[in-house]
């Protein structure tokens, strides 16, 4: 499984709403592997990656949130200047656009980890793997 499932949660931009999401997940003993928030003045979309995304979805919906899923890929990027650039150049070269991406800090050896949403996920996985880019498999991604 090359692609990871990302949850998107609609949130009003109000005090307490984000912590309610976290509360619903912690009550279900679910650990967030990565998250990012896209927001406007009034509302936002919280994107979450967790191993038990199905349970997480259920827990959030039971708590009254509206949840969607999207495919993303995760990969390791050499943690040095130009590390990300080399990956993005390969995506550019095959005509893939990054819709958004987010990096997170847990360092695994020499690499940093990023999550990317491409405009064409199916093609991204097929084409970029053939150019030598390694995506993180779910099992590796969630490994502590």
């Amino acid at each position: 499984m090359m692609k990871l499932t990302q949850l998107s949660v609609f949130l009003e931009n109000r005090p307490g709403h984000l912590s309610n999401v976290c509360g619903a997940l912690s009550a279900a003993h679910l650990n967030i592997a990565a998250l990012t928030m896209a927001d406007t003045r009034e509302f936002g979309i919280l994107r979450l990656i967790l191993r038990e995304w199905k349970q997480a979805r259920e827990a959030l919906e039971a708590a009254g949130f509206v949840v969607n899923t999207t495919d993303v890929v995760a990969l390791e990027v050499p943690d040095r200047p130009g590390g990300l650039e080399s990956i993005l150049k390969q995506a550019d070269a095959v005509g893939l656009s990054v819709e958004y991406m987010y990096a997170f800090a847990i360092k695994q050896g020499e690499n940093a980890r990023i999550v990317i949403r491409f405009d064409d996920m199916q093609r991204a996985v097929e084409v970029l793997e053939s150019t030598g880019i390694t995506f993180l498999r779910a099992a590796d991604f969630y490994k502590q």
Partner: protein
Amino acid sequence: MAPEIYPESTADYLDPDQLRALQLQRLRAIVERCFTRVAVFRQRMQQRGMVPADVRSLDDVAQLPFMRKTDLRDHYPYGLFAVPMKEVVRLHASSGTTGKPIVVGYTRYDIDLWSSLMLRCFVATGIQTGDVLQNAFGYGLFTGGLGAHYGAERLGATVIPISGGNTRRQIMVMKDFGVTAICCTPSYFVHLIEQVHENGLRFAELGLKIGIFGAEPWTEGMRTHIQRESGIRAYDIYGLSEILGPGVAVECSQQAGLHMFEDQFLMEIVDPQTDQVLPDGQVGELVITTLTKQAFPMIRYRTHDLTAVIPERCACGRTLRRIRRIQSRSDDMLIIRGVNVFPSQIEAALLSVMTSSPHYQIVLSRQGGLDQISVELEVTEGMFGDRISQLEVLQTRLAHAIEQTIGLRVPVRLVEPHTIARSEGKAVRVIDQRDKK
């Protein structure tokens, strides 16, 4: 009582018996006219086995069929006109209950009649030749702007056709042009008061003395506020496009109810549930029959405005009976900044963009004296993905669809599921937070 110098206003003081005789004569003529020229009316009369000659007394009006807003929609645009189009010199339109507006027409006589009625309104409130009138009712399809304009010109006042909006310019004009009287919606005037004060101006330095406010319901509390804060005299005016526009009834110097121009409009108060005519003094739905209008006559039009007839003679000397200030309606129509809005129109606009039926709420509030309307919409799974831009596009499309339908810019706020209150399982569609005092 100061002598009236305007011949139009003499009809305000007709002897009651004379007035009733005039009404009956005109009622019989208009029924005959509608029977001959308006197919829908004729069919309904025939269904009841009635002919125009059956109207022998004013009480017989109660036998005639009602006209409703839905009839205006069903016969859009010209189906209820009683003259050929070549005699129609003006069209106006107002909101219908769905996407289509209601179209009304005027012959040259109708425009003349309307002008004379607006003149009588101005005279009743003390406006005269030499006054400078800032007409801040909207010009356009809305009847307010042009209706007041023609009446003021006929009176001989100086009209400033500034139309609505652009508060900064309104204040500049009010100050620089020596404005003595103003027409607008009451909520807009409350907003103007605040802006005048914020600009460091004082009403005592301005020449404004009289305000004529209408196109939306307002209250004695608002009058007290307006008069105290601005030092002007504030008068209520009543009208509706389906009947004429502004100039159907107006307050006089007594500020104790609105005189109905009974020589032109036959009024009844009916129980909105049973349709039975109610006696003077009882609150019910105002039903109006136009007595001489040509292009768009209305027989027993259901206004949905709730009021009562005040039968006592007014201290001003006018013999025209008064109605109480209109406070509420017998349907769900909302009036926002003078614009008529039905919740069903907003729902139709939302549905034109969305695939599933929306959970929404219309929220009315008042900020800085101005009515604010917004729509809160619960986000569902089908409405968004992982990107903010999808939701922003949806917001824009919804707001655009609403503006196309009702002509008002309405912000759409996206909210989480289950945040809109449901009462007994049914969503509460309208939350009115406007101060009713």
